[in-house]
């Protein structure tokens, strides 16, 4: 099958204060349509940088990213982005937030209304239609953010630690809902996380990244059938394997931080 997202030889170099940091180093990754991919690694390993490059927010220094046959040069509604900070517009009601992308697309009022109602119902948000984001809990806000990108019908969802700020019960709840949506709409999802358990629970494939320079350390297919039980043996075997990989990177991260702080 033709890959939907083709990341070839992508590198990204940031220069801050005369120092060059290689955030991404020669990344190659193909994502098939409908695949659920988790980018896993400690903070600072470039997983968010890679996601932002696919989203078109910050273009790579070298290499190319091709989505559905066209190069990524700017952000666009074909790649819906969900942020950890929700990024809902606080001056719009829940309904308006979800309708925003549709209004830009110049859809008719009745069409928008129908679609928004369907999404509100799907994500259990009916009672919050006319509320402002400040009245909602974190989990509810992230539901609205998900509804907002689903409204666009984009085939690809890019998620940057979307459940990172939520408590564990809300988190599991939203993970299940995301899986349901993913199966129902056959979306391609790239999901950034630093939680090993979350990545195993969700993904078809887990891409483990290294800490500076950001490279792909390992690409693991998760074969455990869904729904996955986090207390099962297979789950925990994989968790152990991935923990070792991630902890290796985390300790490199720690060492480098110690080095940097003593250098000052």
């Amino acid at each position: 099958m033709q890959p939907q997202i083709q990341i070839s030889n992508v590198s990204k170099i940031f220069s801050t204060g005369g120092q060059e940091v290689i955030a991404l180093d020669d990344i190659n990754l193909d994502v098939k349509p409908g695949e659920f991919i988790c980018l896993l690694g400690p903070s600072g390993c470039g997983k968010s940088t890679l996601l932002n490059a696919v989203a078109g927010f910050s273009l790579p220094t070298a290499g190319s990213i091709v989505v559905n046959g066209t190069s990524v040069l700017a952000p666009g509604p074909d790649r819906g982005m969900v942020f950890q900070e929700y990024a809902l517009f606080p001056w719009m009601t829940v309904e308006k937030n979800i309708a925003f992308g549709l209004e830009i697309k110049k859809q008719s009022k009745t069409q928008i209304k129908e679609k928004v109602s369907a999404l509100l119902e799907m994500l259990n948000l009916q009672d919050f239609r006319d509320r402002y984001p400040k009245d909602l809990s974190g989990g509810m806000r992230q539901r609205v953010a998900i509804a907002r990108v689903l409204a666009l019908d984009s085939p690809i969802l890019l998620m940057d630690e979307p459940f990172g700020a939520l408590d564990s019960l809300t988190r599991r709840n939203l993970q299940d809902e995301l899986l349901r949506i993913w199966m129902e709409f056959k979306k391609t999802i790239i999901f950034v996380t630093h939680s090993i358990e979350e990545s195993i629970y969700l993904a078809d494939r887990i891409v483990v990244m290294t800490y500076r320079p950001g490279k792909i350390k390992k690409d693991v297919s998760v074969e455990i059938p869904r729904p996955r039980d986090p207390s099962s043996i297979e789950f925990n075997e994989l968790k152990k394997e991935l923990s070792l990989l991630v902890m290796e990177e985390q300790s490199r991260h720690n060492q480098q931080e110690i080095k940097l702080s003593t250098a000052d």
Partner: protein
Amino acid sequence: MLMNTIAGVRHVDGIYIRAARSLGASQTTMFLRVMLPAATPYILTGARIGVGTAFIVVIVAEMIAVNNGLGYRILEAREFFWSDKIIAGMFSIGLLGLAIDTGMNRLNNYLLKWHRGIESN
């Protein structure tokens, strides 16, 4: 007020701009539906201070330069020792000031109903 608007637009959180861009917003939509509303708290603060200052300046200007208006009337009354008129003038200024401020406050609360309590989070 203009300064405040500029400051407000400058301080718009980058995340809103990124979100709007990924939802396909054009430059115009971005300005009208993202930058401007995000900057309203700044704009309204500027407006409130601006209107208050303008009111004081008008009264003073009436006292010095023109021969009409509330400020002028008070000075005129002073010359003739019409203390009742002076006091009436003072009260009028106070009430007008209060009315203007209440009006601005109402406008503030109406336009920023999404914003109230955000600071406390």
